């Protein structure tokens, strides 16, 4: 019952009027920014970082909890009403939810997404509450070797899972690792890759890279190939409520989605895409109205949305307990922690337990606020979709440059922001995923540190890297992640070739 008493203390922290206010502000801002097209949850958190600079860490992180969940929810609203997903985890929601919207059931799609998010978010937060202390206990025994292996596994999974080929994922990861090398080497004081620019000695701020890759890169990309035909937004008509049939078709998918989403999110390999696809496939198989799938089946929104939100909570387990971000949003959150001089990991639970448990408690509170806020305010959020695109992206650039400048009050950061923006544009243009770069940037320096520490302890003996059973298992898993998709792809291509070779007709 230790976790429970600490959670109660967390609620005591989070329920003070001022912290409740921060949670409310966070959820509102997160939803509003998340709804804007072109802005996913990661960018939402990155853009709103400067707003929290003057808050105390506890208040700031309570606000972040709200922004995180609010950004997730806002993103699904955009997917349902505009069809195109802001991030890969909303692909399925976009597919099925938009079909509902086209048939005049947009209100029900938004409702099942909102309530499903609430159910999944709450259940997954409960799971997080009880799982986190267990992982922390285990993580206290981790040595540098184990940490290094964890990071290698994270590198392998983000390269293999994001984007549609290993080469592209790896290119992105390597670019991120390279940016992470810039600055003074903490162990020897050597300046590396600073190009002689003194301001680069401290390294490049993760927030600048995140905002540059996502916001500036996106603005460049949209400008380069703007969609000129108007996009259809579907008006939300009628009562924003579900009838009895909607409820009875929704509640099981919510629970199944949660059960799929949380474990996937909590794995050190992570990612929210796979559980959303699995949930969609499962609901399609289990539904009695299978024919409705692809034409607006409510189960196809309820399940994947729940899976997405449960995975979002699950991602916080490796992030908070071992300091391992497995999604772009988590990488930005980790950067936010570092901004306050905090390093997530087992020690965070010991040294800043008020902050951590306050954060976890406000995840529950944020969920309630989200539900209360979103059902009545849906009409307002929909209005945000109608901002003219030139003004929307010009505004995004204004806030991106503002965010970069206010980190150190330095124009150099704005210049770096633009340079990273160009990289982000080129990556989008060539279909190279952006998330691995961010994860490489933030984990690269940590991986280097752990590797050097491990090899220093073993006096250069490389077998130390597989000396602990955990590290050996993790490295083997990394190898499997890299090799298996390649084998599957090779076999699929061989099968295709065989099929093509057969005479048609």
């Amino acid at each position, binding site marked *: 019952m230790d976790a429970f008493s600490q959670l109660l203390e967390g609620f005591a922290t989070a329920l003070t009027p001022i912290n409740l206010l921060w949670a409310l502000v966070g959820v509102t801002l997160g939803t509003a920014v998340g709804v804007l097209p072109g802005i996913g949850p990661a960018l939402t958190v990155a853009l709103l970082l400067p707003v929290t600079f003057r808050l105390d860490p506890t208040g700031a992180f309570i606000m972040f909890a709200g922004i995180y969940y609010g950004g997730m929810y806002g993103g699904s609203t955009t997917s349902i009403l505009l069809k195109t997903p802001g991030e890969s985890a909303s692909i399925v929601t976009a597919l099925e939810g938009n079909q509902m919207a086209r048939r005049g059931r947009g209100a029900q799609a938004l409702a099942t997404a909102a309530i499903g998010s609430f159910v999944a978010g709450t259940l997954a937060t409960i799971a997080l509450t009880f799982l986190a202390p267990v992982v922390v206990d285990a993580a206290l025994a981790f040595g540098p070797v184990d940490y290094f292996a964890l990071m290698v596994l994270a590198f392998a999974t983000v390269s293999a899972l994001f984007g549609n080929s290993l080469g592209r994922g790896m*290119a992105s990861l390597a670019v991120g690792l390279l940016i992470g090398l810039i600055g003074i080497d903490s162990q020897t004081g*050597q300046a*590396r890759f600073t190009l002689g620019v003194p301001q680069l000695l401290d390294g490049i701020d993760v927030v600048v890279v995140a905002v540059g890759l996502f916001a500036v890169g996106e603005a460049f990309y949209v400008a*380069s*190939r703007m969609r000129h035909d108007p996009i259809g937004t579907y008006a939300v008509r009628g009562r924003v409520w579900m009838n009895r049939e909607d409820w009875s078709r929704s509640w099981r998918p919510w629970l199944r989605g949660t059960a799929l989403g949380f474990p996937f999110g909590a794995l050190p390999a992570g990612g929210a895409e796979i559980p959303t*696809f699995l949930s969609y496939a499962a609901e399609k198989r289990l539904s009695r109205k299978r024919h409705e799938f692809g034409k607006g089946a409510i189960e196809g929104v309820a399940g994947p949305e729940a899976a997405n939100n449960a995975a979002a909570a699950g991602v916080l387990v490796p992030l908070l307990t071992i300091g391992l971000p497995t999604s772009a949003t988590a990488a930005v959150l980790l950067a936010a922690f570092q901004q306050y001089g905090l390093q997530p990991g087992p020690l965070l639970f010991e040294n800043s337990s008020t902050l951590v448990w306050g954060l976890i408690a406000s995840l529950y509170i944020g969920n309630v606020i989200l539900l209360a806020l979103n059902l009545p305010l849906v009409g307002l959020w929909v209005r945000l979709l109608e901002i003219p695109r030139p003004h929307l992206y*010009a505004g995004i650039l204004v806030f991106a440059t*503002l965010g970069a400048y206010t980190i150190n009050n330095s124009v150099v950061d704005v210049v770096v922001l*633009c340079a990273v923006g160009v990289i982000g544009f080129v990556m989008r243009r*060539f279909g190279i995923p952006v998330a691995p770069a961010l994860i490489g940037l933030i984990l690269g320096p940590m991986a280097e540190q752990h590797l050097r520490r491990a090899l220093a302890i073993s006096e250069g003996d490389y077998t130390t890297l597989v000396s602990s059973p955990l590290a050996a298992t993790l490295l083997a898993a990394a190898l499997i992640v890299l090799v298996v998709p390649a084998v599957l792809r090779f076999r699929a291509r061989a099968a295709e070739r065989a099929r093509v070779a057969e005479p048609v007709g």
Partner: protein
Amino acid sequence: MTDLGPVVRTPDGPAGPPVEGGPAEPAPQPPGGRRGIAWSEVALCLVLLGVGTVVLIETARLHVPAVANVVGPRYFPTLVGISLILAGVLLGREVLAGRRAEPEAGEDVDVRAPTDWRALGMLALALATHILFLKLVGYVLAVTVLFALAARGLGSTRFVRDLGIGTVLGLIVYLAFDYGLGITLPTGPLEGLL
């Protein structure tokens, strides 16, 4: 930079996840246009290989202090350089096999449109002016110019109105940061007025 021009018209078919592109996306491209080597992507691979090589050379030139233990400051950058080169090789194999990049789909993006260089130039100009103006003439004016030029590049036609919106936006941000958060943005010659 690389030549991004001529390749854009042919994204690969719906090989990936169920949704690609926006609503009412017309059916797949004529099959003939799909194959062939995309030279701008070859250039991208060369850039990756080149950067990787530069990283390796720069790493080799790093001074390693005598006190450094077994794994010095060169070790990890070497791994990064190798992975850049490896990524370039993997990508190069795909490109030379004729498989093309799928430009990222998005809410406001027409993946089949050719690159609009004029719009990109205008955005670059907007950002460059903003950077130049920040310290020189203060935050509010710098935002005005950034907003109006960027909106213009993105297709807005009412420049004067955009200048107005930019000024208001800049003022709101300036005042909110100054009074609300206690962060002072560069004031410039307007110092006496604000």
